[in-house]
Structures are given as structure tokens and as C-alpha cells.
């Protein structure tokens, strides 16, 4: 069954109008002003990789909002070429009991531009939002969880991602051959396992990533072959490894960020690095491991910060070694290594480290984490939930734990630093 909605197909806004599509059908909106509002669409199919969609948009200018779209092997909403659609306030849910690779994408944007995608709730999809040759879209305030890639961007440019929340996906976001994006104010939380990248840049050039909260991931930000990106004012907290840089990436600028409670802040692979970690005007980053003091009172440490754990590379894939390397031996080693640089491990040198994190941002982050939506009950198929269930704010325990950790670090960091300053001034 394929429904072609030449004009609008609007429900009462409460999701009571419903469409069920069985097997190979699709609900196709041929736009030019067409709309789909307040409808429940349920796609029941069995063929994995059938490439169908519960809702498919053609041409330009459709409005799709306030719908509940449940899909299984098909995609949720498939925007095929054209563009300038508005996709807003939809709940797009895949079938939870299927393996993540056997579901469709939540929102599949293919060769399209100028769409506005806002406040959608996407869960249990393969890729939450998959962009393939997309340009000039705005993707704002969406909530994507329990999917494969939260955001998966290929060959897409000039996209604005703002205040989206990505959590508990296999990979938070991955950008390949993608440039000129503005990734701002997003929250990326709780991506674990060896594939747990919060943000992966591969051949991603000249992007701006500002004011994001990257918390509790295995790997916060990964660069390979990615040049001239500006990473500013983000908070990297409680990650296993906050930033990993291959020396294949050049002329990136990483300043004004706060590194708090990460097991390893930075991992630089052997090679020639050209990353800018501080400038005279803008200063550098806040590192909770920084040991220096602010002598002149302008907020910057008097001594440069160098990454204190030169052995991070040892523990990246061997966490069991962490107990040894995080002990006092590492302190001593770091000291010795600074005096006699035997290891030639490339390390971050931040000439103007900040002595305070961005407290306002931290407070905001705590609020944002607390408002994260409760993960869906994995034992129930999405259709058994009323749509409102997905919008219920609640604080899962891990968020609380993170809040404590981050808050604690922010509060006690300066105190500890004061103690250290006293000690060192004595010596």
C-alpha cells in the first residue's frame, strides 16, 4: 500500500488520526505546501534494508509536525531530494527489540537542502539523523537516543546543529567529509564501549564546535584528517578520553574549553602537531589537573599547562593499567619526564591555561543533564507508549552521578589548587 498524499493530511493534533502501513507501503508527501500534522503513522514491515519509509517527502516545502511515527525496518521520515521542509515536534520511534542494525534511520536526509528540523524525539533507530549530501539545514533541539549513530553526516556542509541532545547511542555523532558546520550548545552524554565516540571528525574541515557539553563518553572528540576546526568553550567532563588528535589533523584551534574529571584529557599521536591550545588574547583552556596559580589576577595561570599524564596512550586501550598510571608514580614520572624528556610523547602545551572553569556553563549543563528524557523501557515496543511518555523529563541515576562529579570537581578544584599553591610557594 502506498499512500500518496497530494495535499494535506491533517489530524486533530492529538495523534488520534492514524495510518497503518503494512509491508511495502509508504506514506508519500508530495510537497508544495503539503503537510502532515498530528497523525500517528505506524509502519509494519519485515524486510531489513527494504529502504522504505513510513513517511517520504518529495519536492519542497512540506510541513510535518506533531506526528508520532513508529517504524521498524523502514525509515521514519525520508527526505528524498528537494528541501525546505519543516519537520517539527515529531516522535519518531523504531522497534526496540530489533537489533540496531536491523532498524531504519529515524530521519533520513538524502541530497536535500534548507530543511528545518526541530524538537523531534528520535529513539531506537539505526541512525537517528542520517545526512547524505545535505546542505544548509538547521537541526535544533532534537533529542536522539538509543540509536546507532545519533547524527551521521556524510558529504554535508553548512549545517547548523544547535541544542540537540544525543545520549546512549552507539556513537554520538560522526561527521565525514563534512565541512562548515556550526555545532553549538549540544549535549552529548553517555556513549560507552570502544565505539563510544561523542564526536568523530574524519575529513571534517573548518567546522565550529562551540558551547557543547560532552559528558561521560568513552571518547569525547576524535580528529583524523580534519583541519582548521574551531573548538571553543565546550565542556569535556567525565569522559574516559576527552580529545584524541591524530597528527594528520592540522591547524585546529581548541581554546576556552573546560576539561573536568576526564580520565585522560588529551591523547596526541606521535607526529607533528599544529593545534592551537591558547592565544594571547583569548587565553587557553581550563584543566582541572593544572597545578599553577593565577598571579596577576586575570584568570590565567602563570605557568603553562602541559598534559600531566604522558602515559595516556598506555591506558587508552588498556584501562586495567590505569590504577598504576594514575598513582603517585605518574606524578613523579611526569616530573621526571618534564626534566628529561625521554619519551618524546607529544603533549598539549597550553600557554595560558584558565584557572576557573566556566561556572555559568557548568550550572547550565547540570540543568540540561537533569532534564534529559528518561530512557525508554527497552522491554516494550514503542507503540504501547503514549507519545507523552517520551516527553516526560526525569533524571536517570547516571545523570545525577555525573552532576555530582562535575559539580564536585568545579567546587573543589579551586580549593585544591589553593592548597597546592601554598605548598609550592613554600618550596
Amino acid at each position, binding site marked *: 500500500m502506498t499512500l500518496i498524499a497530494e495535499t494535506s493530511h491533517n489530524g486533530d493534533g492529538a495523534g488520534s488520526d492514524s495510518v497503518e502501513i503494512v509491508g511495502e507501503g509508504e506514506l508519500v508527501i508530495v510537497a508544495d505546501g503539503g503537510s502532515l500534522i498530528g497523525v500517528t503513522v505506524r509502519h509494519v514491515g519485515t*524486510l531489513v*534494508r527494504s529502504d522504505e519509509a513510513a513517511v517520504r517527502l518529495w519536492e519542497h516545502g512540506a510541513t510535518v509536525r506533531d506526528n508520532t511515527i513508529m517504524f521498524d525496518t523502514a525509515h521514519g521520515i525520508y527526505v528524498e531530494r528537494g528541501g525546505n521542509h519543516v519537520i517539527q515536534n515529531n516522535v519518531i520511534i523504531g522497534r526496540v527489540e530489533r537489533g*540496531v*542494525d536491523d532498524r531504519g534511520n529515524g530521519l533520513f536526509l538524502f541530497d536535500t537542502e534548507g530543511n528545518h528540523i526541530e524538537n523531534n524525539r528520535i529513539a531506537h533507530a539505526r541512525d537517528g539523523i542520517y545526512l547524505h549530501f545535505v546542505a544548509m539545514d538547521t537541526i535544533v533541539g532534537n533529542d536522539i537516543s538509543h540509536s546507532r549513530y545519533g547524527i551521521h553526516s556524510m558529504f554535508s556542509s553548512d549545517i547548523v546543529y544547535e541544542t540537540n541532545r544525543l545520549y546512549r547511542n552507539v556513537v554520538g555523532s560522526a561527521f565525514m567529509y563534512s565541512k562548515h558546520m556550526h555545532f553549538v550548545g549540544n549535549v552529548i552524554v553517555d556513549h560507552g564501549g570502544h565505539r563510544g565516540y561523542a564526536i568523530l571528525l574524519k575529513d571534517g574541515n573548518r567546522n565550529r564546535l562551540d558551547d557543547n557539553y560532552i559528558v561521560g563518553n568513552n571518547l569525547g572528540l576524535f580528529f583524523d584528517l580534519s583541519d582548521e576546526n574551531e573548538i571553543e568553550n565546550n565542556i569535556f567532563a567525565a569522559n574516559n578520553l576527552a580529545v584524541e588528535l*591524530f597528527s*594528520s589533523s592540522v591547524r585546529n584551534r581548541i581554546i576556552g574549553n573546560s576539561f573536568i574529571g576526564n580520565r585522560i584529557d588529551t591523547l596526541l599521536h606521535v607526529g607533528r602537531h599544529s593545534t592551537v591550545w591558547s592565544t594571547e588574547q583569548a587565553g587557553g583552556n581550563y584543566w582541572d589537573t593544572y597545578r599553577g596559580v593565577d598571579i596577576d589576577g586575570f584568570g590565567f595561570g602563570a605557568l603553562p599547562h602541559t598534559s600531566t599524564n604522558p602515559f595516556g596512550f*598506555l591506558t587508552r*586501550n588498556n584501562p586495567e593499567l590505569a590504577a598504576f598510571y594514575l598513582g603517585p608514580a605518574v606524578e613523579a614520572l611526569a616530573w621526571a619526564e618534564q626534566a628529561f624528556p625521554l619519551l618524546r610523547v607529544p603533549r598539549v602545551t597550553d600557554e595560558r591555561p584558565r584557572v576557573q572553569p566556566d561556572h555559568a556553563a557548568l550550572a547550565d549543563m547540570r540543568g540540561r543533564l537533569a532534564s534529559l528524557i528518561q530512557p525508554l523501557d527497552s522491554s516494550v515496543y514503542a507503540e504501547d507508549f503514549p507519545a507523552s511518555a517520551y516527553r516526560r523529563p526525569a533524571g536517570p541515576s547516571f545523570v545525577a552521578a555525573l552532576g555530582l562529579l562535575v559539580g564536585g570537581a568545579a567546587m573543589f578544584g579551586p580549593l585544591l589548587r589553593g592548597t597546592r599553591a601554598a605548598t*609550592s610557594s613554600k618550596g
Partner: protein
Amino acid sequence: MAKSKGSRLNPVSLGIGVFAVAALVLVFVALGNRNAAEPTGALDAGLAHAKTAVPPGELDDYYLFASGGHSGQVYVYGIPSMRRIRTIPVFTPDPVHGWGWDDESREMLGGYTWGDVHHVRLSMTDGEYDGRWLFVNDNANNRVARIDLDTFAPRQILGPLPNTMGPHCAAFITPNSEYLFAPARFSAPIPHGTYASLDEFGDVFWGVLSAVSIESDTGHMDLAWQLKLPPWNWDKGSVGKGESDGWGFVTAYNTEEATTVLEVNASQRDKDYVLAFNWRAAEQAVANGQYEIIDGAKVLDPVKVPGIAFLLPAGKSPHGVDVSPDGRWIVASGKLSPTTTVFDWRKVKEAVEKENFQGYERGLPILSYEDVRVAEVPVGLGPLHTDFDNDGYAYTSLFLESAIVKWKLGTWEVLDKVNIHYNTGHLAVAGGSSMKPYGEWLVTLNKLSKDRFIGVGPSYPENLQLINISGEKMELVADAPSDPEPHYAEIIPARLVNPLEVFPRERNDHPCATWSHADTGIERNGNEVTVRMTAVRSRFTPDIIEVNEGDHVTIHVTNIDQEPDITHGLGISLYDIAIGVDPGQTKTVSFVADKPGVYTFYCTDFWGRRRGLFRQPPPLPAAPLRARPRRHPQRRPLPRPKSSSHPTAHLRWPRRWPRSRTVVRYASARECIKGPSSSTGA
């Protein structure tokens, strides 16, 4: 503990220093014991690299044969030293070996001056490498070639193959080297030479797979039959073995059949396919006459002959398809996925037997993904290729993460991951494509080296990285630069390869081979001049050749040295000729003497060069004769080699030098010439 850089030595810092030294010792011990580490630190990498040391005078354990991409060559490395030992020219002329100038190699090249070697495949007996031949493809000009591993030189180039365009994943080979397969990555109208509009893409374009038979004794290749497949991009291939013997597998992308803006339109669909084809059934069908002849080839249409070709759905734009050593697991990777898919051969077979199809595409039955897939292994982002070791582990290259991941067959556990630098493509485990892997070493073929080597300008080398996989954890141990661009490699224990030390005289079946100075000479038959020449340290006999302008000159050179490593070369100045002759070998070069004057020829290899007196003749007139008429000696059509005690004694100026004549003048060595008079001169 403050980390201030205070310069004063005080008890506290002294204590820290002592502690630091102790800790450093601990770390060194830990590093030494640790079998696998992320070799990100230079120290770590240095310690790991020590394991690749092959001291001077000692030999490597393995050969790595890497395709040379658009160099048209094959690169041979030793493992673990990663020393590049040899470059074997195949589709590209190479003066180092005289490849492309002597008549035989020139004919084999068929007028093409380059090729694109993507895949190398070692011959197998009972599913194990037998060290006899290496088969390679030419993705550009639709050819395949066989390199004999006794001489490490190409012995046959087959093609251009009819109907098949861009045989990218050729030449994957059956477990007993019965066939190699060459599917088309670039579908084209058939037969070649047919013009068609792209609007007709779905109608007259085909992705034809060639099955090339291999003679079991000689390795001689012939085009046996072809499969007419849909016009998709057939990308990578493997054959079944063990329980899946008799089948072949090929990935396809662009099942959208897009023809423009391919990077967009050829990757829209969420699924593509792995083709499973029963080559024994196809062979039988061809024997039964179920084919049509197109451009001289027997072409079998699997839509008309069911039971031969089936489609397995796979993730978008799949790259590698690799079959485990026992033949049961078929691993295919969608390029953009964070997982790799494992199909169970038994389930595939069952679905085929029960005809349990979910539909058809272009007339070919599609098996249900969920029926045949057994695992999505969470290997990591951007999996491309998988290879196998002898302990049931699989290794997958991750393009997106720039990493290699190790996982376990059967349990599908992911066990270890190591970063590489940068952009891995294929990877090779020793013996990994055979039924008997050797494990121990893995080489990843990285597309980019970026900052890994001292700069050589804006064109960078590629980077082959060696990884020790003998322990529980992988360990990156060496970088080795490579010219562009290895796409695929195979690794074989050195003991399985038995290269010749010299070409035994009794194996030289060249009709114009000449083994003694007395048999050398120059013969004329009309305007055909044949020179039979010997080369020996450090002399060509004859060492003067005098011909007339316009003569067709054929030179047969026999290297009568029988000691290892005494290769001779024959270069003729300004005639653009360079041939290479290994000990015991005879090579023939023929050309038209169209440049009047006096020209040197000399041994390009070490021996001639070393005997500078021989090789550096006194200045010779390069201008036409009339410029120096008085110096011409009496005409002597067939000068004989001088048996002079002085090496330059023969270098006399001719008294008379007709302007219409060309003299090819040798410097030192001697050459063998064959030509039109070879029948009489033998």
C-alpha cells in the same frame, strides 16, 4: 607535589627524582612485558620496532606481495623487516629490468604503457599457498597477468578481456587454482566498442564477470567463460573454500544504477548486495552449451540459467567480502556502518536449496537477510576488509576510526583495537586468504602517510604498517613507505617460495640462444640484420654492429654468466632501448635503424659500469658521417669482435662511412641479436 620547574635542587625534588627513576624502571619493565600497547608514544613504538629487526646478513621470514596500483607494478617486501626487496614491473615498462623493450615483454604489454594493479593473488593447491604463481589484475585495461615466482617476472598477460570493463577485484582464485575471476567494476555496453547513451544504462550495459581458467601445470591462462551480471559496480571478491568450495562471492555497489554524480546517486539505497555464484554449476552450464557468444567469449546469463547466482543483502556500499579459512563464515562490511556482517554459509546453502527467496532483482533471487546473517559484529566505524589468522580470530580494517580491530569468529567478541596512520584500506594477515593462515604478522595498507615520513614534496608516499598479531594484543611495530598505491597484499612464508638463483641453461629454450663467443655473429638477409650476441662479465660479443640506415635490426642477447646476481643490461644510446638479461637468459630486441650516425651501446648493469674503460668509449662522432668523411674506415658489413688484449683496441674509426648507414656501436658488453635471419643463424 608541585610540578614547578624550579631549578634549585632541594631534598624534596631529589626525593621525587629518585622516586621517578624507580617508577621509570617500573614502566620500562611494564612496557617490556606488555605484549600490546598503543604505540602512540615514541618510546613504546621504539621498543615495538625492535621486534622487526632483521640483522644485516639475516633473512626475512615472509614475503609480502603488494599491488602497486596505477604504477602497474607489484612491490615485494620482506617481513618483519619491511625492507622493500623488489619491484616487479607488470603492466608498465621498467628499464630496470628492460621490461617493455625486448620483443617478448613489449608484445605482452600490447601497446599499453600503464596498468592499475589492484589485487594480487597467490596460487593455491588444496586451499593453501603453493608458491608457484602470483596473479594480478589491471583495473584500467581489463587484463590479468601471471608472475612466475621462480623468476619473479611476469610470464603472461591476458587481455584486454572482452566484455569485462574494470576488473577491479580480479584475480581472486579458486582453492586449487582452477580459475581466477574478474568481475567488472565499470559496467559498459557489450561488446566493447559499442556506443550507447547513458539513458540506456539498464538495457545495454552489463557488469560481466570473466572466469579465466588456469592450466595446472604451466599456469597458462585462458578466458573460459563469462557471467552476464547486472550493471552494478562489482567491487571485491573472494572464493568459497572448505564447505563453501565451488562458490564465489562478490560485493556490488551502485545497485541504484546511477550514471551521474555518482558519489551522491550511487549511494542512496540503504542496501546493496553480495553476489554468491556457483562456479561449478556455471562451468557445467557452459559445458552444456547454455551460453551465447559475445565478442568471442562464451557468455552465460544467470537469469536464464537458474541456480547459479544469488544475492545476499548487505549494508550500503559494501566493500570487502571475505571468507573464513574453514569456508563457513562470509564477512561483508558496509562501508558506513559501525558493524560488520557475518553470513553463515550453511544458512546460505539452506536458503538456496529451499529456494527461500524474499524477491528478485534484475531476475536474480534475493536471499532474506535475516535468514542468512548470523551476526553484526560491533567492530567499529567504517569497516572495510577482514582477514583471518590460524587461531580463529578475524581482523577488520576500520576506515573511519583509522584502526584495526581484532575479533573472534563464532563468539563475535571484539577483543582489541589498534590505531593506524592513516586511512587504512585493505589489510593482510600471513596466509589470511587461504585455508591455512600463518598468523603472526598483519600489514595494513594505509592510503595516507601525512606526517609519518620526512617530506618529499606535495606528493606523499603511502604507508604500510606492520602489526604483530602473535600475542593476545596487537602491536604496531613498523612503518614502511610505499609508492602509490597498494590496494591489496598477500603474505606467504619465504620457505614456500623457491626462486631461481640463475636461469639454468637447460631451461633456456630461446631459439637464438648463443652460448659461446664462436657462435656469435651478425647476419644479413636483405635489410634484415640479425645479431647473435653474448654478454658476460664484462663484455659483449660482438661489440661492434654496423648496419645500413633503414635496416631492421634484431639483437639476441644471451647472458652466458651462470653465477647468481650477474644480470646484464643492454642500453643503446638515443635509440631508446634498454633490455635486461638475467644469467642464463636470452632476450631479443628488434628495431629499425632509422638514425644514421654512431651510437654507443653498453651494459646498464653493474658489470659494464664497473669496467668503465669498456663502457665509456672514447668520444664518438654522433653526427652524420659526412661531417667526418676522412675518418671512415673501409666498409666492413659484419665486424667481428676483437680478441684484443686491450679493451678499447677495437674502437677504431671507420675509414669510410656511407651517409646512408647507421652504426650501432657498443661500448663494452656484447649482445645477442636475433632477427629475421634467426632461422638461418641458429
